[in-house]
């Protein structure tokens, strides 16, 4: 259906005049200006002409777009054939593009799904030094609690974050660092420190592995992935996250080195 919608705009100018002609024919039939056989002959002829024009138009399209144009045309003619002007109108409505805001997208739209996406994601992040936080929408209830809850509610929310930490929760922890309650600040700081410790300890251990076997590609790749995980953790500011990505790139993880990026 999405592919069909891409060819819709081109056919709008074709569909609307067709609707007008179909409506005139029906009006003539209802007003007894046309007999049944005359109406049916004209209706079939109009459908045939529309089909020819549609196929011709589709044939003129670029190869990548040809199939979607043809699909839209056939749908339009089929609806027109079956229900006259009502079918044409229904086809135009059904094939109308849905607003982008109403389209359901996967929750982690920003998250790389394939190795190629990952490369693009990494490239974009390095170029614009922007922090991308997938799953950010999941943490809104926790954000509300951190902002307005009681001390015990805030501590419970931080407990949830501690157990299921994701990059999206990092801004919540930073927000909690400025809380008016000292216990909340201390807990937030404890969680942040634990997360930093986990990343830096892992990186340190992998660095030791790489130092012990500098030519081992697996160790280098794993170290690069650890740097990338730290960069994407949401714990670092943009400059430090970028530095971690560059460290990963320097390790020679070939797919991670974007075209044109500085070493």
């Amino acid at each position, binding site marked *: 259906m999405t592919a069909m919608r891409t060819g819709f705009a081109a056919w709008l100018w074709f569909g609307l005049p067709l609707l007008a002609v179909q409506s005139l024919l029906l009006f003539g039939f209802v007003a007894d200006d046309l007999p049944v056989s005359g109406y049916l002959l004209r209706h079939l002829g109009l459908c045939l002409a529309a089909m020819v024009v549609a196929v011709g138009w589709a044939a003129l399209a670029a190869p990548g777009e040809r199939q979607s144009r043809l699909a839209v045309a056939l749908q339009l003619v089929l609806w027109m054939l079956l229900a006259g002007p009502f079918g044409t109108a229904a086809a135009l409505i059904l094939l109308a593009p849905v607003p982008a805001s109403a389209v359901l997208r996967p929750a982690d739209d920003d998250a790389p799904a394939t190795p190629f996406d990952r490369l693009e994601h990494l490239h974009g992040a390095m170029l614009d030094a922007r922090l991308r936080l997938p799953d950010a929408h*999941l943490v809104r*209830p*926790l954000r509300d*609690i951190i902002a307005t*809850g009681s*001390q015990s*509610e805030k*501590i*419970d*929310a*931080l*407990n*949830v974050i*501690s*157990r*299921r930490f994701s990059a999206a929760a990092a801004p919540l922890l930073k927000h909690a*660092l*400025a809380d008016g309650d*000292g*216990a909340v*600040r*201390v*807990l*937030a*700081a*404890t*969680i*942040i*420190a*634990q997360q*930093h*410790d986990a990343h*830096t*300890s892992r*990186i*340190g251990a992998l*660095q*030791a592995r790489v130092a012990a076997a500098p030519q081992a590609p697996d160790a280098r790749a794993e170290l690069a992935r650890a740097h990338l995980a730290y960069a994407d953790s949401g714990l670092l*500011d943009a400059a430090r996250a970028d530095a971690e990505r560059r460290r990963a790139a320097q390790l020679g993880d070939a797919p991670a080195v974007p075209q044109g990026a500085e070493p």
Partner: protein
Amino acid sequence: MSAQADICLIVEGGYPYVLGGVASWMDAYMRASPELRFHVISIGTAAQPRVNRYPIAANVVGITDVILDRCPTGRSPSLRSRGLRSRGSIAPAVRLMQQILAGVPGPSFAALIELVQQTGFGQAALLDSKPAWTAMEAVYRQMLPNGPLLDFFWSWRFLARGLLSLITTPLPPARIFHAVSTGYAGLFGAYAQHVTGRPYVVTEHGIYTNERRIELAVARWIHDSGASGFGVGARPPELRDIWLAAFTSISRIAYEHADAITTQYRANQHYQCLDGAPPDKLRIIPNGIDVDAYDGVRRDPAPHPPTVLMIGRIVPIKDIRTFIMAVAQLRELVPEIIAILIGPEDEDPAYAADCRALVEQLGIAASVRFLGRVPDVKPYLGAADVLALTSISEAQPIALLEAAATGLPAVTTDVGSCREIIEGFADDPIIGRGGFVVEPCNPKAVAEALAAILRDDALRAEMGQVMRRRIPSLYHKNRVKGLYDALYTEVAASVNQAQAKPAYRAPAATGQADAPRDRVAPLHGPIREGALAMTGDGG
């Protein structure tokens, strides 16, 4: 039985087996009060190494170890003679323990002490017997209906055994009992106060319940059912809640029995009130230092690279990693910077090793020096340009007070009373700031604040002067000693000694698995005047 002590200090997980923090404070406090004789109750677990980390002060007349996970076996609940009647008191005893641990203690604590003393029950009757198991099952159905019985069983066993261990410990003869936290130490003080009628004081450096809340929130050994998903509203009780209720409850008991409750700074009193401390018992007594000794330290006039000093144990709560990462960023602003870390590394060797590895990882080995423990920090305070303290949690850090007394500006995280020390407080006679306070876990903020001080000689001198003037007015050892003396006098007067109960007689030690141990130190000479000087890195 050891000799009569003036003060029985009660501590959990600290002196004399742990360095730093409250243990350092206790050691300094006892040494600075040679006119007083002390007995120490040291509460810990069997797994905790019990190796003295301090030379015991001459005025310590005895140390009693209380092992929370070992309690006396006690009398068996046999069916012979009085057995049938006493077996009937097992379930009520378990219900009393439930009330104490579930947050509704009321008179249950006193009732349990008396019941245990009357029956001679211990672990055999109240934890290992069939009636105790049946009673525990009933408690489980009320407290953790949706949780695993096995998890509840082990939690209950530890908490109840700790409770029994405390209230079956023979009490040393002392004029005043002084717990240096709530929790188990505070509960022991409440037990001593109930049994002997002697004055009882609680001093809290950090707020025990807050610290336990934080520990429990990040504890990986507690299983969460996940029944509440991401929700934090109405939800079934979790094992974590059982523990938290127990800690909150025993702290409340400590507050109820105490004659006075002290802490170092005002913000803590808010939490104490929330936990049930009666406001009329609250006092503020800050930490004290030997201002004269530190005021004499002079800045080294010789040219030297900009130097930032950190003093503290190399442990996670000091967040040394943030300091190291800050130094890495500071090098970009002040390239010739030297960072010196002073503090023992043996408390958490793995963390210390990680910190050293991080220095290598960041390529700043030329700028960072780990000196370990040093005999005297004064020469380093004189040679440094600024003190850094990146702790996640503190109370009132002695290291900051000592550095401030030498006129050293500081950059600290916004924890404990650091902001009060650096920026002053309402009605503070000394106006001005002695450094910068930044949010925790923010290396960039630490680096920028350090750079601001290091790059501006006039600002550094001005901040140093503010610090040097602020410390003597509030944190001088003589002032602090006077406050403690007055407190002891006050609580002693408030307790009618004539009504104090007769000398306490320890219960017979029947089949004790690992009975509390008395270690008697030699008696000492006549009481003489002494000064209160506390040193170390403890808050």
